[in-house]
């Protein structure tokens, strides 16, 4: 009895399977395959992904019974076709089941993310516009049909503003810092981006009071900066003067808010050493006027800055990238708000090299009353 039941179950399974695979010709039809969107524009240059939905419309023509009939709708791969030739396989297998009553018509939707690598994008860009398609052939085990979407190459501005890379470092290019209390410290986010728009970013800080426990950060500064490019661009965003008033471990991050490509938040650490203070020397920010960022230095380059009340002298300092101690500089009395470097100071500098400069306002006892952020300059 048990054996006969098992045999009859097996027979039913085989019949069902045979019904799916060999249920006779013209028992089910795929009427059409359409892609949504019907065309995409993908930025050239780096790996690009986009989402496409395939809508497969089919009619159940099996009239051997009322149904429902279950059919497997599948497509083994997607092909990138250029000028009629398949140049790459760009998608994996897609499948779903379609259950219809006899004579019924319906549509199933299959969604996938298609990724084109730079080599494929290059082929796309090198081909005549309109000649590239992504093609999928779907089968419902009875019939098959193909659908396609057109693919066009576009500049990197064929998308929203996208941050591609954040390189976070302290202003002297270091990625870890140990500083004394109230020492001037800034960070720089070197940002590579695509397209144009308003960057929405935040400088976030975890103070020593929370770095040991909850690690709750606070927003040190909100950044809203317009970025424009013809496709790709790069910009540097300098942090506000970082807190160094209390000793302990600080964690610093720069976060961006954007749709689409997600990017992790880079984090730096710095530690403040307290030496015991008899007075608070927390320098104020100092504005500089000249030279412009990245200017080429010469004996004629003027360094200029805003007046600081109470200053007895100003000291312009030039730093090698990565160094904390100045390489050279010049000290002038407070009656001067600009200076040029002499040949003696310029002799310290190597040709064709990038440096940074800052100016300090010194008080009566040599204390630093105000300090500017370090700005880049270079030599020819």
């Amino acid at each position, binding site marked *: 009895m048990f054996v006969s039941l098992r045999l009859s179950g097996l027979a039913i399974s085989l019949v069902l399977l045979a019904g799916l695979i060999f249920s006779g010709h013209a028992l089910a039809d795929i009427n059409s395959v359409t892609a949504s969107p019907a065309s995409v524009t993908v930025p050239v240059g780096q790996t690009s992904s986009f989402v496409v939905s395939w809508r497969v419309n089919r009619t159940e023509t099996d009239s051997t019974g009322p149904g429902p009939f279950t059919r497997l709708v599948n497509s083994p791969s997607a092909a990138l076709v250029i000028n009629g030739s398949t140049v790459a396989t760009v998608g994996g297998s897609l499948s779903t089941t379609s259950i219809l009553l006899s004579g019924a018509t319906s549509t199933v939707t299959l969604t996938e993310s298609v990724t084109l*690598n*730079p*080599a494929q994008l*290059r082929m796309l860009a*090198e081909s005549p*516009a*309109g000649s590239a398609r992504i093609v999928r052939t779907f089968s419902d085990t009875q019939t098959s049909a193909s659908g396609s979407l057109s693919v066009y*190459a*576009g*500049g990197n501005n*064929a*998308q*929203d503003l996208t941050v591609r*890379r954040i390189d976070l470092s302290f202003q002297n*290019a270091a*990625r*870890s810092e*140990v500083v004394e209390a109230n020492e001037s410290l800034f960070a720089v986010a070197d940002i*590579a981006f695509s397209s144009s728009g308003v960057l929405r970013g935040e400088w976030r800080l975890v*103070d020593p*009071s929370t770095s*040991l*426990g909850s690690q*709750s950060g606070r927003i040190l500064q*909100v950044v*809203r900066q317009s970025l424009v490019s013809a496709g*790709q661009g790069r910009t540097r965003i300098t942090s506000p003067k970082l807190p160094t008033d*209390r000793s302990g*471990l600080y964690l610093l991050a720069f976060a961006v808010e954007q749709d689409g490509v997600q*990017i992790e938040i880079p984090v*730096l*650490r710095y*530690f403040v050493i*307290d030496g*015991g203070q*008899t007075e*608070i020397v927390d320098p*104020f920010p100092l*504005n500089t*006027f*000249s030279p*412009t960022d990245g200017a080429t230095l010469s004996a*004629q*380059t003027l360094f200029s800055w805003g007046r600081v*009340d109470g200053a*007895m002298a100003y000291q312009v300092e030039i730093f*090698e*990238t990565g160094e904390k101690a100045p390489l050279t500089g*010049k*000290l002038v*009395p*407070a009656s001067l708000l600009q200076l040029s470097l*002499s*040949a003696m100071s310029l*002799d310290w500098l*190597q040709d*064709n*090299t*990038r440096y940074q400069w800052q100016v300090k306002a010194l008080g009566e*006892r040599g204390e630093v009353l105000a300090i500017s952020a370090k700005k880049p300059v270079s030599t020819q």
Partner: protein
Amino acid sequence: MKIKLIKCCSLLLMLFSPYVYAEDWQAELITEPGSGHLLLIDLPAELDIQTLTRLSVELDGIDITAAMGYEEGDFTYTPLQALPPGLHTLKLVVLNADGSAVEKQQWQFETGQEALAASDGSAEPSAAQLDAAESWLRSGRFDSNNSVEISQGLADHNINTSTRRFIMSGAGTSSGQLNGEDWQINARSNYFLQSEQDLSLTGNSLDIGEYQISARRDADWGKTNIRLGDQSMGLNSALLSPYQRRGASLHVEDVNERISTRAFAFRPDAVIGADHFTGLSEPDSRIEGFAASVKPFSSDAYALKLTSVYYDGKGSPTGFGISSNDVSAEGSGWALALDKGFFDGKLTVSGEYARASYDGDGDIGELEQEKSEAYTFLMESYPFESLMWGDLPVDLMFGLRYERIDTFFASLANPGLAADRDVTSAYSHLYWDRFSANLHLSHETNNVDDLEGLPTDRLRHANWSGTYAFDQQQGGWSWLGSPYLQLSGFVAKLDRRETPDNYLGVDTDNASKSTTIGGGANYQRGYLNTAYTLSEFEDHAQVSSDTLSRFISAGGGWRPNDRVSVNADIQYGVFETRLIADKAYTTNMNMGLQTILIPNKLDLGVNYNLNLAGGDNDSPDRHLMNAELGWTYITASRNNPGVAFALRGALERYHGNSGSTFYEDNYQVFAIVRITAPFGAGY
């Protein structure tokens, strides 16, 4: 110890000094000469006035000529602040009429705890120290500053992290220097201690951060410099970023700086910690190359200079502090650059051709190696030498730059470089008296490789900025202190220049503009600043939404006396995404108070932060207050560790609103013992 900045008086004295000519003369350095000065350069009485007016003095690389006094025929110097302990180098230099500088004499002297006291007139340097300095004998120094905090959690509430209650945390820096007659060795490093692995720098409880060891030799024929550790090449090239990486370099330069060569090897990724100590241990993560410069015709500063750069390597251009989707790649490149100055440097011209090969996924992927090119041409001019308007110097500069970077240009040693750009830009900078202004115009297109299926877009961009600083206000306007105004902005238009036949991809047609108006004021004991920015983005092609950003910020600091400091800043922004009618409000506020209740004994710091996000981006209000009360038991000084105790805590509150019902308070309190240990020695 007040400085005597009598530059003008010095000049007058020099001009009226007896005219005496001397071909070969020697000066003498006298430290602690009395009269409150730290240094006195004893100049020969017979020195002629022409030479005297061309003398400059440099202390540790800083030109202090303008801060020197001229008393009874000698230069004197008294720094505003006592020099830091250690070895110092003083140079007496003659500036020639042709702009060159010739070192006349050099001295070394040491300041330490005793020497610092000596600057107050309480001790004298030893004869041995002076002899050693004057005869340029071997010397050295070592400095180290360290701090360790031992923390014990006293109380907490709703703290989700699994931090232990007992934590050790600390950090330090150490540096050393050895000097020989014509060589110098420097070493420096920072290091971190952290018992909590999540907070540690590298996952190790004790590890170095970054370090550098360098050796330099100044011989008669030139200079040699070897560096190991974290360093920057600092080169201006499309191939090489001036970023800091770990590795080794050798730099050799002849004495006239006509020939300069630099060989290097470093990791392409940013590393910290003792792992990969040299940066050279993994061939699959290493870039090797060289840079060489030669001035074939003259050693003049503006003479023609040829520079070549070459590198080859593989690895991932990511690492600590870098967020990107880059993977391990392979690449090489070479570049040739020319630089030349004309009209005594009034016009400088430079150009670079770079060629790079880049395989974005190295040996393992299917990407093929791309070969691409980049051209840069730069012309800058300071057309007027020593231009004066109304007896005030003027800095006026014009520049022209052309840059052409292939569509698929990528260099392993310059990650993040913006490719596919054909840019012509003109810019100008003006500074005069209290006014500065910048103007930048550019025209940029993409599809540099002129690919058949790719449309060509065009960006026209103009930006400007200007600052005016007023004099210190007097009388009824004195409350304004020393005010300044700032204005900056830009307009940009991006549209389609060429569309391929049969192209049905998205169009490009958008415009951006932004204006920032700001200002502020500086006071002897405080500052204020504020700015308002309006940024608008309109996408007529409907690729992305139109946006409008309005952002206002204000900040200030106040130091009513030497023991109290207060600072505050607030930012408020509205960001509209017009396509979906979304409007987000952001408010951020920081307030800080730092005070020394009892000098060298008791101090208090308090900080309050408020974050509000409203509108369509609504989230619970967040308040964070943290504070630390510190008691210094033993004040640290050089070679005498100090001990301090502190109570440190934070209170965080989430306050739900219409968009969220999330309410939560959490707090934590730690007791801390802090040991600070600065060390130093020199000989």
